[in-house]
């Protein structure tokens, strides 16, 4: 029966991937910050997933199961390529205290990027990918309480950043 499950899973999986591929790409991109690497991560993730598809017990877990693979693959990828996240000029500018002339939209655009990865991934998975916090914790291999506290911290950080932006425009 296991074989049959694997095949049923495969059909569901193929469809799931085709429908959601853009979301996987965005998630991968949020780690790699680079188009080619994100494509590689998506490709690796799909192949890995297909190899272990028969170990997935229930298709209802497919979403969080696959997201976990994508996240792990992305983190592995960054580790393997010893590629610290590339910090672009805008971010550097933001991080330099002396610089005051930050543009409103630039900040809003980068608010998420500037968030450390451990906070950013929680926000993306929970809010943008509509995953329950318990699933997010599972995907990231952290405790539920940790996921919660990271989310609060993330929101706090974002709020502060966004308020800062407001402050900037009010003063500017």
């Amino acid at each position: 029966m296991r074989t049959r499950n694997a095949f049923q899973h495969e059909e569901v999986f193929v469809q799931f991937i085709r429908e959601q591929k853009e979301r996987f790409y965005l998630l991968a991109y949020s780690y790699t910050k680079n188009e080619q690497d994100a494509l590689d991560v998506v490709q690796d993730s799909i192949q890995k997933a297909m190899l272990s598809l028969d170990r997935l017990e229930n298709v209802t877990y497919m979403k969080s199961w696959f997201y976990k693979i994508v996240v792990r693959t992305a983190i592995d990828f960054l580790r393997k390529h010893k590629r610290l996240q590339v910090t672009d000029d805008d971010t550097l500018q933001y991080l330099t205290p002396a610089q005051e002339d930050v543009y409103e939209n630039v900040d809003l655009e980068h608010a998420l990027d500037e968030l450390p990865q451990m906070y950013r991934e929680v926000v993306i998975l929970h809010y943008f990918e509509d995953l329950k916090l318990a699933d997010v914790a599972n995907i990231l291999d952290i405790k539920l309480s940790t996921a919660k506290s990271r989310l609060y911290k993330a929101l706090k950080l974002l709020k502060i950043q966004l308020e800062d932006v407001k402050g900037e425009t009010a003063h500017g």
Partner: protein
Amino acid sequence: MDKKLQELEKQYMKVPIPKELDFVVEKALKQGRKKKKNRTPQWVLGSAAAAMLFTAGLNVSPAMARTLSEIPVVGSVIKVLTWTEYEVAEDNYDANIKVPSIENLENQDLANTLNEKYRAEGKTLYDEFMAEVGDLKLNGGGHLGIDSGYEIKTDNEQILSIGRYVVNTVASSSTVMEYDTIDKENEILITLPMLFKDQHYIETISENIKEQMRTQIAESNQDKVYWVKGAGLADEELMEEFTTIKPDQQFYISDKGKLVISFDKYEVAPGYMGVVEFEIPTDVLKDDLVSTKYIH
């Protein structure tokens, strides 16, 4: 959701999706499937479950078709792509049927005729295979395999020759090869009779093939065997004596403009010879040819 979060989500979604994504995803799905096939033991355990994986590539995703068409698969304009793949992987039943599709022909009638033929044949192969598997299962099982696909024999500025093969595996295997040759310039399908002035070509080609068969048998010290008379083979060895080609014998035109005649496995020789081909020297044909445009 909080307004700021909504704004952030919008930003998150704003990352451009590269057009290669479709291609990468389809490729990964396909490769994942292949890799999986190679490590069958783990999941072949247990009851035999039917699987039909319908790899729709081009027909599902226009974006992918577009991406693919940007990759020069074959030649510059007219291309051959895999339209669909049927796959069955079970303990004793194996099928892999690739259906080609000729793209970018301006002559829509020709394109439709060929592509519909390919698709219909692919589907028929698959249906027949599944029916046979059903029969076998009712009768206590057996082994059955089918492998069908295509290869490009010639693709130059003038000629596109595409060969499609079907390998049936029951106890032994049989192979059938079919060719279509297209004049890319004029976008017409080339048939064997139209290359020649009259029916005389049948005799000319047949005689030449017999000669080549005899030479090959003699040179190989009878390692190679064709069912032809006059080569020192005992009559009982001639399962089915080759006397003449069919008027519409399978053929293709090689890259160098030579006519190549093809015979299926078992058609003119024992099974171990497989599919056999004979290149006919243009010199031999020159009196029968209408022109030296295609064959030279």
